[in-house]
């Protein structure tokens, strides 16, 4: 019976693969064991809690593939022709939360599109194909756009360092909020920092380091001095204005149908010009979606969607959910990850968008189990 179910999940995966193949995708494979270093570098220590790590005496730390995106991007950057459409299917391995009854080995079917010509059309193509392959399952699609949030942060009238800190924590909403409160003057400075900034007025940083004790560690005196200078710069800079904090909050709070969200964003843009080109791209995407027959007046858009996923999406993001099945997680998800191709491309990059589907949940929906 168990094998039978596995067989049916596999058949579901095959059906979806065949769909993407018929749409012109090239089938690709990836090794089950991936070098841990690249994945750790991309995802940080958190991936260690999610992925299975093993050790090879010659090749060092290896991970059981936690997703296909990274190896597929690497393969494309090394040898792919442009533009390219790829599809893949196979197991991935993820440790589940303690107490969870979710499988730690499961199939994924994915589709990735690498194309420089028309990002809006590429976004729409991927989203429309996922919509088609999942047709009849009564799923609700959610969409978002991290590009708008990034443009808003870049457009703040404040020092670069604050913008960099906010961008770094776009995927950690609580930390982002804490930084915004501090940069906006809504929260007070920690006591130790106030004391440090007071102390450096009367004694130089090298003097203070000397007074603090014996110097140990790889982080150098110049790095400490550089950060103290950064703190002084931050203290001297005026807080981010209440209006600009308000624009960010407004963008993050949007939960509307996509066509209404566009009007909302245009109103914010009237006061906060720096998001204009990102909102233009959003509008172009909506037009491209309409051209593919998607009703944007019925499509959900959330200003903060995609902020809690693994941190590589940097533009359009989407997910398909089964609303009447709260026991199932997101059935399919994806988004644009232009920056990731730059990180993995060793100097080269290409706009890319794609997503993955969980066939076991598709089957659960079909069978009502």
């Amino acid at each position, binding site marked *: 019976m168990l094998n039978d179910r596995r067989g049916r999940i596999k058949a579901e995966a095959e059906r979806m693969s065949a769909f993407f193949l018929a749409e012109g995708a090239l089938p690709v494979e990836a090794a089950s064991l991936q070098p841990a270093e690249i994945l750790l570098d991309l995802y940080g220590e958190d991936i260690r809690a999610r992925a299975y790590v093993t050790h090879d005496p010659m090749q060092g730390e290896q991970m059981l593939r936690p997703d296909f995106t990274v190896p597929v991007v690497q393969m494309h950057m090394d040898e792919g022709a442009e533009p390219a459409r790829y599809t893949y299917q196979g197991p991935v391995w993820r440790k589940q939360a303690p107490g969870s009854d979710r499988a730690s080995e499961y199939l994924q079917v994915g589709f990735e599109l690498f194309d420089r010509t028309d990002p809006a059309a590429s976004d729409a193509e991927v989203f429309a194909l996922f919509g088609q392959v999942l047709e009849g399952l009564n799923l609700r699609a959610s969409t978002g756009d991290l590009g708008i949030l990034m443009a808003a942060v870049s457009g703040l009238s404040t020092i670069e360092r604050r913008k960099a800190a906010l961008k770094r924590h776009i995927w950690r909403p609580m*930390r982002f909020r804490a930084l915004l409160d501090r940069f906006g003057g809504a929260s007070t400075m920690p006591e130790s920092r106030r004391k440090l900034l007071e102390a450096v007025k009367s004694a130089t940083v090298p003097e203070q380091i000397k007074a603090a004790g014996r110097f140990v560690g*790889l982080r150098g005196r110049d790095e400490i001095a550089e950060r*103290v200078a950064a703190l002084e710069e931050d203290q001297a800079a005026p807080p981010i204005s209440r209006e600009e904090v308000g624009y960010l909050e407004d963008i993050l709070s949007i939960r509307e149908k996509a066509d209404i969200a566009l009007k909302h964003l245009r109103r914010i843009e009237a006061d906060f010009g720096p998001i204009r080109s990102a909102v233009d791209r959003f509008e172009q995407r909506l037009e491209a979606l309409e051209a593919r027959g998607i009703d944007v007046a019925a499509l959900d858009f959330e200003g903060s969607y995609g902020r809690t996923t693994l941190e590589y999406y940097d533009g359009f993001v989407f997910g398909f959910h089964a609303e009447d099945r709260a026991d199932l997680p997101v059935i399919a998800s994806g988004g644009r990850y232009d920056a990731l191709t730059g990180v993995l491309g060793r100097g080269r990059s290409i706009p890319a968008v794609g997503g993955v589907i969980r066939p076991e949940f598709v089957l659960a929906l079909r069978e009502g189990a």
Partner: protein
Amino acid sequence: MAVKLGVPSKGRLQELTFDWFRTRGLDLRRSGSVREYAGAVDGFEGVELVLLSAGEIPRELVSGRIDLGVTGTDLVHERIPLWDQQMELLARLGFGHADLLLAVPKVWIDVDTLDDLDAAAAQFRARHGFRLRIATKYHTMVREFLRLNGVADYQLVDSQGATEGTVKNLTAEAIADISSTGDTLEANHLKPLADGLIHQSQAALFRARVAPAGTADQNILATLLARIGVHQSE
């Protein structure tokens, strides 16, 4: 059969454990030679004393090979996911206090909070091309703590001993370790972060949620717990 009580196999932790039980009317003692890992419970039929490394006691409780065990809360939190579904904390014993905390070099005059650590980690990664290394043996607790507090751009490096020395030896930039007094930190030119307290550990008596087989042993367990004056929840 017998009810099995697991206690630390040696050292100060064992002495204090024996003292704790003695003041509650239960005499535990080692049997055989000083070097032999064997023990006995005087004046209480049907209880077997098992001497174990404190680090193995959590696992033995989960498997139900021992019914009661004394070990540090840090070891239970670190090693047993959802530990409270597998065992019940019956009593905190008031000794073996130790804080799991994050510490950085004292010369880092710019770092006092997790917010500072996060900023220093970003700067460090940009400068050195790898993530700031934190040496620890408490991977699970440290990773969860840093995730909840939104610290990024770090990596954990495993250190099973002499962790405070890793910074001086340039194998880590910061540490997360158990510190009972702070003297070792001081001697190694480190300071704790103001908001870097991850866990306050002490020795505790745990009961395996896997009940002993047979009503006879279950009755012995209940009598034993009544004697030492602790209550189990079910």
